[in-house]
Every structure is written in C-alpha cells, then in structure tokens.
C-alpha cells in the first residue's frame, strides 16, 4: 500500500506498480479535475503539484509518491475562496476548459516563485501546457490579471 497526502488529506491506496499518480487521483480518489490528455507528458492536462513542483501526473508511478504531498485543482482554492489564478481564468473565460486545471496549477506555481512575471516569463513557463482551443491569449491575460492591475492592457508578445 502507498500512503500519500492529497490536498492536505492523508490517503492509503493500492500499490499496483503499473498505476500512475493520475490513475489513482481520478479512479481511486475520484478527483476528476485532473485530466488525461496525451499520456506521454506532452500536453500538460494532468499537471499537479508534487511537493509544490509542477509535474505531469501521467508520468509519475504511484510507487514514487510514497509519503509525498500532492496538490490537485480541487485543493487550489482555500475553502470557498478561489485562488487568484482561478478567479482570473473564470473572468477571462475559456472555451472547453479541458486544459484549465493543469494551466491553473502551473500558473499558481509560477506566481509563487515569481510574483510579478513578465509576459515572456509567463509564455516560457506555460509552454508545457497545451490549449487545443487556442486560448493562449486568454490564459496570458488571466495570469496578468491574477498578478494585479493592468490586466486589460493589449497583450503583446514577440
């Protein structure tokens, strides 16, 4: 059996070594906010924070998370108050939303490390998450909005 902490709560789960962290989050813990996209670490839809570090949960074997702490999209808000990144993504509006949980966690990790990123820093950091609706401008505006004022400025990136 594997013991791990998810969003502050301890869990004990089956240790079938073939299962990934993504499988366990979705199927055992019913935390379906984390999405399966490509299954090979190329799309970022399954991004979660592992001890605070963004990782693609489809490429983490369950055996590797013994004793570690995971944050999923369900744990990003503090009680009923959305994280500033979530507020901003809601405000900017997305299309299908499939990439949003991973994008939100990735962006939250950016703002914790770099509270006031430049547009170039945002684009570089977010490069590992794909939006197949092509909503990258909205994501960029949302992160700028989460950072602070000036969110309605024209977005300009080289």
């Amino acid at each position, binding site marked *: 059996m594997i013991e791990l902490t998810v969003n502050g709560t301890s869990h004990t789960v089956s*240790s079938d*070594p*073939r299962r*990934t962290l993504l499988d366990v989050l979705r199927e055992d813990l019913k935390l379906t906010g984390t999405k399966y996209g490509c*299954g*090979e*670490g*190329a799309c*970022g839809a399954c*991004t979660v924070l*592992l001890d605070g*570090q*963004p*990782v*693609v949960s*489809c*490429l*983490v*074997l369950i*055996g*590797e998370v*013994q004793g570690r702490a995971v944050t999923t999209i369900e744990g990003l808000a503090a009680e009923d108050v959305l994280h500033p990144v979530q507020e901003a993504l809601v405000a900017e509006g997305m299309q299908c939303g499939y990439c949003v949980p991973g994008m939100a966690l*990735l962006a939250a*990790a950016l703002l914790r490390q770099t509270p006031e990123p430049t547009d*170039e820093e945002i*684009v*570089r*950091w977010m*490069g*590992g*998450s794909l939006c197949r609706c092509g909503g990258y401008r909205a994501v960029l505006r949302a992160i700028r909005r989460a950072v602070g004022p000036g969110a309605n400025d024209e977005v300009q990136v*080289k």
Partner: protein
Amino acid sequence: MKDFEYTAPATLRDAVKLLAEKGENARVLAGGTDLIVQMRGRRYQPERVVDIKKIPEVNELTFSPRKGLRIGAAVPCHIIYHNSDVIERYPGIVDAAMIIGGIQIQGRATLGGNLCNASPSADSIPALIAYGAIAEIQGPQGKRKIPVEEFCVSPGRNALQPGEMLVCIQIPQSKSNTGAHYLRFIPRNEMDIAVVGVGACVELAGRGKAQTFKRVRIALAAVGPTPIFASAAGASLEGQSVSEESILAAAEAAKSVAKPISDMRGPAEYRTHLVGVLTKRALIGAVKRARGEHVPNAVQEHESAHPVYTLS
C-alpha cells in the same frame, strides 16, 4: 503496460544487485519522462523497475575547484539550472537543461536519464561532450569511468552492461578563460525535438588581436545515429587566431562529419547546412563567454535586442 516489480533501493550496492539479478529485464527509473512513455508504448517491458532516487550518490550536485562539477544521475533539470555554481561556471549546461521539455518535465527529467536514453537528438549530450564530461558507472564488479562521447553506441542504446547503472556525470574544472554554448534549432520555442543541436567549449590563450584558441571541443545532436563528437573540427582551431575566418573553417569541418537522415523534421541537406550555422554561432557564443561577456540562451534571448553571433 505489462506488470512489473517496483523497487526503490536506498544504496548503490542494493541497486546494482537488483539490476544484475534481472539483467536485460530490469530498467533504471530516474525522472521517468522517457521510461514510462517507453513502457506504455511497449518498447521496454521490464520485469523490474529500479527507482534510484532514494540513493544519496545519485542526488549529488556539487562543485569543487579541484574535482569540478558532479551531477548525480537523478538530479532533475530544474535543480541543475537553478544551481549557482552551474550558472556561473557551466552556462553550456544551463543552455541545455532549460530547453529539455517544459517546466513540468524539467521538474522530473534528469541529465543522467537524457544521457542513458541515448537519443541522437538529446539536448544535454553535446553540451556534456563539449565540456569533456565523464560518465561514472557502478556495476557488480565495481566502478568504471568512460568519456561521455563513448557512452552512446546506437539510437537508444548506451554502453552500460547488464547490472550497471550511471551514478554521476563529472565535468572537469572550468578555467577562467573557458566558455561554452549549446544551441539547437527547432520550429517552435519549447516542447520539441532538435532538428540539429550543437555544443561548443573553447579555452582561449592571450588577449586582443593575438588571442588564439588553445583547446576546442565541438559536438553535434540529431545528425547521426548517436550524438557526434566533432573532434577534428575542434582540433583544427587549436593554435589558430580567434577570428570569423577560423570559426567558419571549423564550421565547415563540423558539417563534414554530420551524417543526418531525412525525416519529418527536415531533409539531410538542410540539417547539414544547419550544422554549419549553429557551429559558427555556438563557437562565437563560447568565445564571448570565455571573454566574460553575457550571452543569453534560447530561453533568456528576449533580454537582448541585438543579434549576438558576431565577434566584436
């Protein structure tokens, strides 16, 4: 995915024993960003996976003036490119580690894994070869060391024997008049595989117009079945004055050892042309860094408004 046994030994000794017992049917797990994909795609179906991340020696990242840099086989890219000794003394390693996958991949992927995966297009391998890095290997019979340019033997195959594992990558001490640069060409900015990559490391002698190349190492990615050490191209510069002419001649020499295939990423002629362009730029970037000038890498490029690839 076929069923397998997951093990996470705490010592090198136990890891080597677990690997040796299963031979070809055991695989080492570090960051997992290649292995798990390969297992799911059934390229490898190991009976045993040996997760090495609990072993102290493979988590080492230390610099000492005498021994140089030691990068443990399980140290992830983001730890490497945030390390102040690496940033200050080995910028060519930072160039490579910052462009392997995106942020989520860099949180897990290791240079040790990038080397062991032995992809011809691996970004870190030309940088490591250029720096003269040594692979430190542990096996049932003890330790051995081989130069990184001898580590990859064919696409996806390395020099490790059954029961052996990579422990660390050693990079010699960086001298003050030394500089290195790694560049790759891809159609987008991140999350892509190199069409061509070139790493160069130069040691200079003298100053001003009398400045010459003392030692030069050049290595190429994605233009052959393994990363290529273009030793003759580097050696051709030694003793030559530092000039656009000598650098262009070395770039031609590098083109002559490139043996690219044509595939969806580009035809062979195009890749050979790119070897010339990138070798010239990597050498100029390395010279500038050896002279103490700041040369941004692909990620830091927006900091600089002017093209950097001319000698001043």
